[in-house]
């Protein structure tokens, strides 16, 4: 296991400590519940936007706390939804008169933990609603499953809801924005390697030296199929077609285009993918109004990438353009 870790059991609280030491003015850390929150939130007249999920997807979710983004987030162990108590305490810590919006990625564990926590919070008259994000087109949606997974599209839901909350929108208005983003965002990813959860110490799956997993989940879940590695542009074509045909997007659409690294892929390779994805948008008649190339939702050190398209309207464009700040910065 080639990792920077001390005791693997302390991996998550240790990196959270680093995040808060790096952002002393902005953030506050509650180790007992593996929660990070803005120091200056909650405030009574603003909706708090929160989230909580397994760790290992950094900068999602706790590193996405900041002005114009999340007000607080808790996390479980690597790839495990947070315990119910952590979710409940996060709601309580960010409770405001305007209400709390919980953005939940569509995994059984996250859903159950938050549902339970919300029941507990509502019993204490806290105003709280939740929204389920499910942008991954890799696995067909079906009545007989938990449904599509929530992956990198989560960033756009947070960004838009965070901007709306900062502008003082109501809980119901922000819920409608979450729904609009989620209805218009689609993602699919591909893995070239597995990752190694520190506590497990071994890979989650094993790919041959010339294989890739198309439609991989951000926890290393199998995707649509395993294939021989293709040239970068062909991989983009496969992801792009799957994503673009899902809604489907139409010529004339204004879109945001994201190429998200899964953790172990260098930024140079992400821009190789971006170049072709951008060309594919142009060929399809979509105008790329905003673009995002980097790491937004990862799977530890997994080599791989996902492609996300979000169809925009003027409201969403404005929310994406609004100022925001997160725990991870360049300058």
């Amino acid at each position, binding site marked *: 296991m080639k990792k920077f870790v001390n005791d693997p059991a302390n991996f998550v609280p240790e990196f959270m400590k680093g995040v808060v030491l790096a952002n002393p003015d902005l953030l506050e850390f509650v180790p007992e519940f593996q929660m990070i929150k803005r120091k200056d939130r909650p405030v009574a007249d603003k909706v708090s936007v929160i989230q909580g999920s397994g760790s290992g997807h950094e900068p999602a979710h706790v590193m996405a706390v900041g002005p114009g983004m999340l007000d607080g987030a808790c996390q*479980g162990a690597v790839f495990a939804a947070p315990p119910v108590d952590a979710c409940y305490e996060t709601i309580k810590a960010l409770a405001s008169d305007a209400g709390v919006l919980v953005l939940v990625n569509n995994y059984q*564990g996250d859903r159950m*933990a938050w549902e*339970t926590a919300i029941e507990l919070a509502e019993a204490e008259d806290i105003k709280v609603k939740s929204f389920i994000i499910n942008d991954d087109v890799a696995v067909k949606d079906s009545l007989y*499953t*938990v449904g599509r*997974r929530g992956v990198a599209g989560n960033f756009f839901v947070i960004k838009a809801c965070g901007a709306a909350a900062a502008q003082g929108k109501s809980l119901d208005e922000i819920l409608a924005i979450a729904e609009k983003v989620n209805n218009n965002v689609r993602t699919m990813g591909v893995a070239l390697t597995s990752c190694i959860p520190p506590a*497990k110490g*071994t890979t989650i799956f094993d790919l041959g030296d010339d294989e890739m997993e198309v439609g991989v989940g951000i926890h290393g*879940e199998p995707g649509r199929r395993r294939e021989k590695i293709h040239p970068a542009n062909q991989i983009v074509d496969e992801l792009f077609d799957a994503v673009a045909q899902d809604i489907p997007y139409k010529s004339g659409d204004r879109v945001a285009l994201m190429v998200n690294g899964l953790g172990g892929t260098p930024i140079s390779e992400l821009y190789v993918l971006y170049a072709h994805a951008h060309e594919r948008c142009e060929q399809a008649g979509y105008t790329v109004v905003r673009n995002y190339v980097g790491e937004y939702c990862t799977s530890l050190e997994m080599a791989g990438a996902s492609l996300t398209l979000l169809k925009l309207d003027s409201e969403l464009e404005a929310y994406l353009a609004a100022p925001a700040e997160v725990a991870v910065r360049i300058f």
Partner: protein
Amino acid sequence: MADITIGDVERAVKTTATTVLRNEHYFSDLDGLAGDGDFGTSLATGFRVIDAELPGIDKSAIGAMLLKISMLVSKHVGGSSGPIWGTGFMKAAMVSKGKETVTLVELADMVNTAVEGIMARGGAQLGDKTLLDALIPVTEKLKAHAAAGTADLGLVLKECADEAENAIDATRGLVAHRGRASQVGDRSAGTPDPGIVAIATILQDWCTEFGVERTPTVPELLKQTV
């Protein structure tokens, strides 16, 4: 017919903790086949605390003890297992409130209430390839023995363990419909569900702990290192 005492329940909980801690890596590996490889660690995190705190827990009644255990699960167990096992313990606690012993009929009711709570929480049914596929047949077996007034609790335990173990092979070929494994489509077929394996292993270890002779046959139970 002998009742089940709070001491029996405590021994069962203690044995469960031992089972979970011993199989931490094995259960995670099983979860890695079609899930995300955290099942063993999530359970072990909670049962490590339960194991440590069990001696000091309020044992005035079975309900009080199980409620405290459910609270420890809610605080320390993440993943789907947190709400599922937390709900299970909490529901069982509600129908054993104030009781120092329970009859087989009451035990069947506790397990049945727990199973119903888990179904309500996660929306899974029999055949969705979750630990309910082990727990539901176990409940049915318990109810049948309770109705029949079976006196030999060892026999009851053995037959419950049989049901749980049978569920491993019976569901192996199924496609999961709930939990993370359901989000990988057909690719969950052919792998055992780790939750079912865990239930079967726990029941097998209860047999050993309570002196009930039983030899497992399914590879997942045989291959475990003790």
